[in-house]
């Protein structure tokens, strides 16, 4: 059973990487963005099936980090420099959100 789960996961990941790398006729920049979209998909899987609320909190935190990276990639490939401003703002609000979720999971108020 364990081997079957390993094999299915490896087949899924290798299939997606091979599909993006060889079958799609797009530019290399779009291919790199699609590789980052696989990361978004994996963190969303953890967000849906996480057993405890803390799993979902971690998944949303990592999702925010990936959005910052995506803004950086867009800034490099398009040459517009206001994507970096979006990245900084997202980093700020993601940090505050992670701390608030940690307080909420611990079961305390925001006062103490």
């Amino acid at each position, binding site marked *: 059973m364990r081997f079957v789960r390993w094999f299915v996961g490896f087949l899924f990941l290798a299939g997606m990487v091979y599909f993006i790398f060889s079958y799609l006729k797009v530019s290399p920049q779009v291919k790199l963005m699609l590789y980052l979209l696989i990361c978004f998909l994996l963190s969303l899987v953890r967000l849906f099936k996480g057993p405890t609320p803390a799993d979902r909190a971690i998944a949303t935190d990592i999702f925010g*980090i990936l959005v910052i990276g995506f803004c*950086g990639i867009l*800034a490099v490939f398009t040459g517009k*420099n206001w994507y970096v401003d979006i990245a900084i703002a997202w*980093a700020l609000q993601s940090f505050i959100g992670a701390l608030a979720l940690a307080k909420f999971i611990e079961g305390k108020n925001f006062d103490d």
Partner: protein
Amino acid sequence: MIEILALFFIVVGITFDLFGCIGLIRMPDIYTRLQAATKCVTLGTCGILFAVFVKFGLSPAGIKALLCIVFLMLTAPVSAHALARATHRSGVKLHEGAVCDKYAEDRSKNII
């Protein structure tokens, strides 16, 4: 030359993001999952933002990218530590293959 260097840093960052998200799916326990997922930040997203700095040079956008790297380096361990502490205090058990739990021992002895 600058374009190739920026592309190299982006490829390194996307590779580490992909490995971190695979760890987020694969790991059996919430604490090991958090330990794997925080690797997304330090070399994944910071690599992509360093690629932004390489592309834009010492312009305002590049300086903003460096500031975003410093902010992420400061805040990502803080939020990860807060999430792990809140999870442990809310009573989530470790994986059954775990060897020791020093935080629970210290809390049972009223040291912390």
